């Protein structure tokens, strides 16, 4: 059951990520990014992180991607033309870095899964209550610092958008 769900979600995630990169229409790319985010929320669910999965759907798929779509539609971006020019230095460097990233990730995975047993998670793991308790006890200062950071970012955005206040 879990394996079937994992395979389906993985296929969805990989295909939608591919479409995001390769499709020429910005709206289709944005829509498949939303599908990708939902697939990732499915992975969270498989890992018992229910709260995280729901927030992923509400915040990323339900709000941020809708705004991205809004902007794309408002600007009425045309489909990208196919380009045949030579790869730029930036794209070569990006590809090299991607290969390095995959190598590091593979190395970390190989190290982590070599005969180690993962401890079973507690039954309340990932529930709304346990995440909330952790946020307001153990991680109180980082949590408040992040909210301060968000306020600063918001004020910055308003200042940039409205020069004359």
């Amino acid at each position, binding site marked *: *059951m879990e394996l079937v769900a994992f395979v389906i979600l993985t296929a969805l995630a990989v295909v939608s990520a591919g479409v995001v990169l390769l499709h020429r*229409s910005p*709206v*289709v790319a944005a*829509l498949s990014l*939303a599908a990708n985010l939902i697939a990732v929320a499915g992975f969270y669910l498989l890992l018992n992180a*229910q*709260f995280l999965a*729901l*927030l992923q*759907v*509400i915040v990323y*798929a*339900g*709000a941020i991607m*809708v*705004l991205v*779509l*809004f902007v794309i*539609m*408002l600007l009425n971006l045309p489909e990208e033309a196919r380009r045949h020019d030579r790869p730029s230095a930036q794209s070569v460097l990006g590809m090299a870095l991607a290969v390095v990233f995959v190598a590091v990730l593979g190395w970390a995975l190989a190290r982590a899964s070599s005969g180690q047993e993962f401890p079973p998670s507690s039954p309340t793991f990932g*529930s*709304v*209550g346990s995440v909330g308790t952790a946020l307001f006890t153990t991680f109180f200062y980082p949590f408040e610092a992040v909210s301060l950071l968000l306020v600063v970012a918001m004020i910055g955005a308003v200042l940039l958008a409205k020069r004359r206040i």
Partner: protein
Amino acid sequence: MNWLEIAITLAEILVVANALMIGVSIMTWIERRLSGMIQFRWGPNRVGPFGLFQPLADGIKFLMKEDIIPAEAHKPIFVLAPALSLVTALCAFAVVPFGPTVEIAGRTIDLVILDLDGGLLFGLAAASLGVYGIVCAGWSSRSKYALMGGLRASAQMVSYELALALSLIGVVLLSGTLRPVAIVEQQAGWFWNWNVFGGWQILGFLVFLVAGFAETNRLPFDLPEAESELVAGYHTEYSAMKFSMFVMAEYIAMITVSAMATTLFFGGYQLGFPVPLEGWPLAILQVCAFLAKLSAFLVLFVWVRWTLPRFRYDQLMDLGWKRLLPLGLINVIVTGALVAFDLLGN
């Protein structure tokens, strides 16, 4: 989870999905008859007694009509959009408890499809995904009216979701849980235990109601399909069954918002007074109580639609960001104080 549990859940899904569809067809009839009454005319009264078979005739008509896909449309997304709308609308209802726990052949069964720890969030998530159907329809039609409708829908939904979520926090503070089933159980007994009275959530309820009207794109907030300016907004280019799927999605969203209002603020399936009954008779009575409260809200939806004129777009945004959001915050602060200082007397 064994096979029997899966079978029970599937049966529940089947029953609820069909009940929702029947509810939609009844609602279309009620809306047209009630709007007729409000406007001093008859409404559909030819097909069957009181025009009751009108939804059936409409259904046949929608199935027989030609399904037109504009030549310029982005076909895959154009076809996907109505399905997306309908599916997300159906999903949101899954967390609404429509009855108490009953016992069938020695098994206890909760009358709710999905009893989640974060059930309220699930409802919000499904509602927030609902906008994709409208946005996709608006964009893929390649028509300026549809595109304007889609644009308006996305801005409107994102703005009013905040107020909607804030209005729920008061209830969550009171009950200390996000599980709709637990929230309903805490409102048992007399009707003054319901959150809207006993929990002083009148402000929260009003914010929820207004934001709910906006989330379902009903008048006075139906800017995405404003006839006088946008022809029919995001579904201008749709015909036949695809058009009817958008209508169904709108009505199901209406039913879900009504069910949520009932569950969170008006005691869900609780009767509101103690009765000397238990077991099956009580369960049936409670399901009926739930349906009665739900219907009251649905009639309110229709009543408001034919009473209030449409907002202008800037008024809509002003109401969402400058009125509802602060009111929602005030509600959170007041409810938080009530809970923290234990002033509710229970």
